[in-house]
Each structure stands twice: as structure tokens, then as C-alpha cells.
């Protein structure tokens, strides 16, 4: 039974990773027609280096993700402090209001933003994408930091106050240092959400002001080139690294943990 279960798990992993591995491998194959035998070449990566459009879209993606991470982490952390450390009327409703960006299909959110930004004159472009990405990332940040606050015992702050700390001093000396792993984790999470976001960026992009996923999408629709494999592989590896970093920081086992 056990070995059967392990074989099944192995098959699931093959299913999950097979296309990714094939794609990554093809980026190193000299033939543009995916022909075998495999002929190792970095030709497509060299091509990529000369593709100004993709490079620019790549930088756009990175800047957007960095800004999203900074803004969403700052705002979301403040909101998490209120939602998890203070009691007030309407708290339950405010927590529920975090769900729409997560639970509503991005197609609907994205088209709604398109309509509204057009209507109000905000328009489309990187600034509009930033507004959208931050909104998508805030709920995740609030939830990650909130979970961190939940595992952080409130009596540590009380202990600090019993020793003479004002609430603000207690926050900076005790809560913030212990919450740091969660905050860094949340920032990485927000970065990943933005870096991989396609649907919202797609509706809010204008030609010449796109992100990497949008550019990849239009390239796929126009026809394959292994260059796309190369850039896709880079994007995959980048987001895997970011997410493994998140797991490292935000998992229980950071210094904020209970013994």
C-alpha cells in the first residue's frame, strides 16, 4: 500500500513538473522547431539578450513587483495590526472585505478596473497596474502578517508595558522585531503575486507599457519561438526562488515561534 502510494505521488510530481522541464529544456535546444535529437545551445538566451521589448517588459515587471511589495507590505502591516490587535465594532466585516480581491475571478476584477480607470481618467499603463497589483497584494499581506501576530503572544507586549514601556516603545522593541520574519515573508509574497500577475496587467496594459507576462502572452499568440522558453524559464526560476524565500521566512520556526 505504502509503496503504491509513493509511486502515485511520484506520478503526480511528474505530471506537475514534466511540461516545465520540457519547456526549460527546449530553451537550450538549438532547433527552433523543438526537433530532437537535443542539441545544446544557449543561442536563444543570446537572442533574448538582444530583444529590447522583452528586456524592457522584464524591467517593468521587476519595478512593478518591488513597488507593489513595498507599498502593500507597509499598508497591509498597519491594517493587520488593527485587525488582529485591536477590538472594535465592524472588525468582522472589514476582514471579510479583504476577500474580494482574492476570491473574485481576476477576469472580473481586471475588467472592472479597466472600466473604472477609463471612466475616471486614471487610464491604463504601469501606474494603473500598480494600483491593481497593490490591491491584490494587500489582502495576502494582511493575512500573512495577521497570522504572524496571532502566533506572537500578546503577553509579550504586556510584559514590556509592565516593565515601563509605553505601547509605542513596546511595539518597536518587542512586537516589530519578533514580527519581522512575517513582514519579510509578506513582502516576498506580494512581490511574487505582482511578478506573476497576468490577467490584471493584461487589461490595464497599453502597447509599449507592458509587463513580462503580458509580453509573453502576445508572443505565444503570435507564434512560438524558443526565446519565449528562455524568458519563461527565467521567470519560473525567479518566482520559485522568491517563494522558497517566503517559505523560509514565514514558516513557523522563525524566532517569533512558541517553544
Amino acid at each position, binding site marked *: 500500500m505504502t509503496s503504491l502510494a509513493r509511486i502515485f505521488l511520484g506520478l503526480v510530481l511528474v505530471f506537475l513538473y514534466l511540461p516545465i522541464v520540457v519547456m526549460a529544456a527546449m530553451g537550450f535546444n538549438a532547433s527552433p522547431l523543438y526537433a530532437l535529437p537535443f542539441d545544446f545551445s544557449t543561442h536563444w538566451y543570446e537572442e533574448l539578450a538582444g530583444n529590447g521589448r522583452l528586456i524592457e517588459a522584464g524591467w517593468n515587471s521587476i519595478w512593478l513587483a518591488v513597488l507593489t511589495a513595498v507599498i502593500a507590505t507597509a499598508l497591509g502591516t498597519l491594517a493587520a495590526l488593527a485587525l488582529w490587535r485591536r477590538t472594535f465594532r465592524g472588525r468582522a466585516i472589514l476582514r471579510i472585505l479583504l476577500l474580494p480581491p482574492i476570491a473574485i475571478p481576476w477576469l472580473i476584477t481586471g475588467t472592472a478596473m479597466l472600466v473604472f480607470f477609463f471612466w475616471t481618467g486614471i487610464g491604463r499603463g504601469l501606474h494603473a497596474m500598480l494600483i491593481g497589483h497593490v490591491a491584490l497584494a494587500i489582502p495576502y499581506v494582511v493575512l500573512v502578517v495577521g497570522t504572524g501576530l496571532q502566533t506572537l*503572544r500578546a*503577553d*509579550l507586549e*504586556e*510584559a*514590556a*508595558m*509592565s*516593565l*515601563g*514601556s*509605553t*505601547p509605542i*516603545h513596546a511595539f518597536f*522593541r*518587542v512586537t516589530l*522585531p*519578533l514580527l519581522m520574519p512575517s513582514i519579510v515573508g509578506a513582502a516576498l509574497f506580494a512581490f511574487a503575486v505582482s511578478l506573476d500577475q497576468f490577467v490584471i496587467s493584461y487589461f490595464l496594459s497599453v502597447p509599449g507599457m507592458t509587463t513580462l507576462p503580458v509580453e509573453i502572452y502576445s508572443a505565444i499568440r503570435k507564434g512560438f519561438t524558443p526565446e519565449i522558453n528562455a524568458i519563461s524559464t527565467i521567470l519560473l526560476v525567479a518566482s520559485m526562488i522568491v517563494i522558497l524565500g517566503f517559505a523560509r521566512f514565514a514558516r513557523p520556526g522563525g*524566532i*517569533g*515561534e512558541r*517553544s
Partner: protein
Amino acid sequence: MSGVDVTGVAKSYGATRVLTDITQSFESGTFTSLLGPSGSGKTTLLRIVAGFVAPDEGSVRIAGADVTGVPVYARNIGMVFQSYALFPHMSVAANVGFGLGRRGIRGKAARAQVEEALEMVRLPGFGARHPKQLSGGQQQRVALARAIVIRPDVLLLDEPLSALDRRLRQEMQVELLRIQRESGLTTIFVTHDQEEALTLSDKVAILDRGRIVQMGRPAEVYERPRTKFAAEFLGDANFLTGIVRAGRVEIAGAAIATEDRLPPDGATVTLAVRPEKIAIRPADAAGSGALENSLPATVASVIYTGTALTYMLRSGDLSLKVFAQNSDGSPLAEGSAVVLSWAARHSVSVEG
């Protein structure tokens, strides 16, 4: 001089009344236990003294000054939490020195005081370690050192021993008592463990549903409980309810004597008798005439625990419990007829 005075304090959460009109003095330098079951309001009272909870009514004075409106951090209290609440990101020395820093004591002077406090809790030289590297008992000591190093006006302990295993707990009780005596701090200790309260305290206050039902020296509270609840929560008790007749109480056909003042004839009263105060002997054995009260009974069951025996008995409609030393190694058989006897001063009249 008075350590802590609580006057007319009441607290409700929504419709739930947690504390009702608490007025109590905690004398300077004494060790007082707040003893009660969970939900009795003992922790809320401690947190009101600490300043984490604001009372709805009443006032709190610490060392003579009214602190009712003063926030926690300006009260000069020392508190030990149930979970110790040591700062996991700071060394032991930084933990202990935290309160000194808040009082403007830094550098050499602070280091000396920290080391002195660590010596007092028998952890000299532990300053560089981190809380994670310490055992439960050691963390407990650090928490205590952190609370006493600032020379607080009152030391508040919130069930600090409940997380320790039995042996360590007894060891810490001795330590706690020594440290309290050496430091001379006014101490308020919250616990639900009656044995702990009796061992440690100068005074025990018993809380029941938001009220202090009795406060006094441990022996006083144990020997002369004022209410049924106090008698039952602190130790074990038999309750005998009967009608007053000619200075005695008629129960199950016997007239029970007590030294307490009784209401006039015809009133119903309840007497509490501790199970270990009752002597038990077979009905056919020679009587011990020295004890004022005697009651015939039948052994219903015997619980054998090695050093002691617990007899469950019946006398008419009454169920009684008696603790006896296992002195001759042969317990009385179930169903045997016995006579129970006890002194008049051990029949304590209690309120319902």
C-alpha cells in the same frame, strides 16, 4: 503602610459581571494569594491592579498613590506571567535589564543590578544565554528576576507555576517564598491550586463569582471557613444541615455541638466538618468520651491509598467522608457499623 488598596472595584464585560464591589487591602510586604476556580475573577482583579484592565467602578492605590487612571507602564509594578513572556529575541541579561532601561538605569549600574537579581534567583552567569536555551524552571526564574530587579511597589504573579511539573513546582514554591521574604515585596499571587496557596501565603483570599468571600491567614481560612464554597474549595468538607434546638443542631437524630454562635431555636444551619477531624471506631469498641459529638454510621466504601484511608459512610440520609491514617493496616470492612466522633470546635457553622 499599605501596599495595595482596592476600593469598591467592579468590572463587567457586556452583561457578564466579573467582579462585584471588591474592597481589600494588601498589606505592605505580605504575600497574598487570590484563590478561586476559573471564572471567579481572580485574574481580572490582578490585571486591574496591574493596570491592563480598567475597572468600571472603584479605585486602586499602590504604595499610597491613587493609580486608577494611570496606565500600566507608569505604575511601577513587577509582573510574572503564566507563560513567563520572556522576550525571545533578547538575551537573559537584556530581558532582566529591560525594566531598568525604562527607568533610565543603563550601563555599569544596570549590569550590576541584573547580575544581583540573577544571583537572587540562583542563575548567576546566565546573562548571555537566550530564553530558548533555558529549561522551564530557569525561564521562570528569569521572569521573576526581571520583575523584581526594578524594585516594584507590588509584585504580581499570574499562576506562574502552573506550567511546571509537580516536582519542579514544589521546588519553585520554596524559591519563590525565599525570594519574597528576602526582597520584602508586597506580593499578589493568583492561583487555583489550594495547596500552593496554603504553603506560600501570609494571607489567602478566596474568590467566588466575582466576590472575595473570605480573606485571612491560611490556617484561619482553612479551620474556620465562612461559607460552604470556602470550605469546599479549600480542602474537603462534610456539610451537616439541621435545625437549631437548645444550643445544639439536630442532625440525623443526633444533637451536634459547636462552639460557634448559633441563631435562635428553629433556624436551619449548616455545619462544616473536615473529614480528617472525625475519628472513626467500630460501634462495639469502647467509646472515647473526650469528644463532644458522636454519630452512628455504616461504612459504604473504603478507598485505600496506602498512607491514608478514605471512608465513605452513611448515617441515615447523610453521606459522610472521613480521612483516617492507615495506622494498623486493616481497614474497617464495608457494611460494618461504626461511631464517628469529633470535637465541638470542629463543627464550623457556614453560610450556604
